[in-house]
């Protein structure tokens, strides 16, 4: 349950990045930078979803955590330079979420 709630900031990030890219008047409508931020937010969401649902372990887990972390950090930086304050804050939350998730032991499926 905790893992699924960890997806909420990333979901919000995707929503805000999509809004910035699509909606007129954001200052970055239709730009490559906003599209990049959307892709980054989606990557962070997918990474967290993988951690929450697929429960990777070992090296695979470390790789997913690292990739998700990088995607979230870069998206937060991109959002800063896109002057999308809400997205910057949300992606910073996503970064924190990844750190928390990474610090917790991976869930293991109970043996039959």
């Amino acid at each position: 349950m905790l893992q699924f709630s960890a997806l909420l900031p990333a979901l919000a990030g995707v929503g805000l990045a999509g809004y910035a890219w699509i909606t007129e008047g954001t200052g970055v409508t239709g730009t490559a930078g906003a599209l990049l931020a959307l892709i980054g937010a989606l990557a962070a969401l997918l990474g967290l979803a993988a951690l929450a649902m697929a429960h990777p372990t070992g090296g695979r887990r470390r790789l997913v955590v690292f990739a998700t972390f990088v995607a979230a950090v870069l998206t937060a930086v991109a959002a800063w330079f896109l002057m999308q304050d809400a997205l910057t804050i949300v992606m910073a939350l996503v970064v924190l979420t990844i750190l928390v998730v990474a610090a917790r032991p991976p869930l293991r499926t109970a043996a039959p």
Partner: protein
Amino acid sequence: MTRHLALLSTSLLCPLPAQAEQTRWDTFNGTLSASKFADVASFTPETVPRLERAWEVRTGDVADGSGELPETVWSATPIYANGTLYLGTPFYRIIALDPATGEEKWRYDSQSTLEALTQPALKNRGVAYWESGATGPCEKRVYLGTMDATLHAVDADTGKPCADFGVNGVLNVNQWNETNAVFPFSLLQPPTIVGDRILIGWSGMDWEYTVEPPGNLMAVDARTGELLWDTGFIPAELIPRTGTANIWSSMSADPELGLVYVPVSSPSPNYWGGNRLEGIPLATSTTAVDIETGAVAWSFQHIRHDIWDYDTPSAPTLVDIRRGDEVIPALVQTTKQGFIFVLDRRTGEPLFPIEDRPVPPSDAEGEGTAATQPFVTVPPPTVPVEDLPGVWGLSDALSLGECSKDRETYRYEGLFTPPSVEGTFLWPGTAGANNWGGAAVDPRSGILYVNSSRVVQVLRLIPREDYESEVHNATDGNIEGGNEAGFHAQEGSPYGIELYEWTNSLGLPCWEPPFGTFSAYDLASGERLYEVPFGLTQRWGFYGMRAWGSPTLGGPVVTAGGVVFIGASMDDRVRALDAATGEELWSDIVAAPSVAIPAVFTHEGVDYVVFTAGGNSILKPQVADQVVAYRLGSP
């Protein structure tokens, strides 16, 4: 300290009128003085954070160049007159709007051809307004010029053509294009109207040919379109060999002195002058012309033998300057090269010393540069022209020293370094430190406000025998680009040219920021009161740092309440600044860079500021067709 005293004196000596209002904003620069001062008191540093959108309109007249139509470039100042807001569009239509609601009153379509005949884009800078003082149809008129050289007159109340003007409301201005007519007289800038006279300049392609139409100023009757006089700016004996020195920008006028002040551009071709070594005294000048007769009253040349395309770019700003007990009728001319010329507008005499300094000679075939050029040190230039901006460390590092290498490769020996085959740094760039937006001045204090760009370009002469092959082999896609970038033939001269911004291979500027500033000057002392970075650069959506500023196109308006309104920056924002400090007080995002001058006026007791957001590819490839009006919301 002096700065604070000057600003303090503004507030002490010039108390705000309690019921100030701006009842008209009926020229490209707001008024004939081109002061861009709006006598509205409600917009103050304390109130403008409450600005809110009153309405927004999309004209529909926009193209990004991806379809059949050329790209649009829109720099129209909305005209407020006759209780109506009038706009010209880059599809050469006039739209009349209700200033309170934005509701369309009428629309007139000139049916002009939508072809980029003389420019790389469909361009428009708005309309002109005239009224006779009588009542009845066509006693109030709106005039619209087109790229194919026609001037349309329509009734300001109905939008119906005024049949007594030209032929059924359309004047063929190209009928007077009789010499070296390699392109039509494109009417992109609305004409200036003084009394019952319409004063007409035109645009062309001075980067393309050596022999072109000679620049002139024409006066026609506002009612009939009859040609009253025609004043040329190129000596008759040189006309077979050269051309332009035209007026593509706006003009200002002093009806009491009976003079119109015209910013005359450079001769053709832009970057080689071996065909005109005798000199053209009226080219690249501010010239005062008698409104009644067309006689040249005086002329002040800003550059001798201009081979940098440093056209005089804007209407000079008229202001009375107090020196001791004397009040001097002055004009202030901002320029592409960054100098601010302050002249007595009765005589053209400079009000601050101007130094003649030696400048580097040319090694181009047939060229002969002037030995000296005028340098203005007071007021200080709007950009630091004493030396090329330094190499930007960030850009240099990211490109592994590309910028430093360029700095050693291209020629630069100070301002007015001539174009060369090896490549010359053009600083300021051809779009200018200052361009068509010009400056604003508060006539009560004599403080001048101006936005400036810091862009470095590289200009390369290409020998004629190599030009075609170089253009053919070019792979960077900048074969076309108007006069601000790309390859240009300069047909009839020994050289074509290539012009481009000095960037590294990542597209980052090689020169150090800031890239744009906003400044204030005390015109009595010539002192600069402040200079701050202005606007934000933007690429792929990402914004630059605030300290970097942004190149700008378009101009400011200063209000009686001590606020400056300005768009102009790359970042699609319109802003209100504190006139005392340049600090940003308010901003809003619009659909594209607002490369125009805003309109500030009082309609039915309410103060409005209206911006057009049209964009310009010189700043970035983004266009729009948006008009946005703001007024104060509730406290």
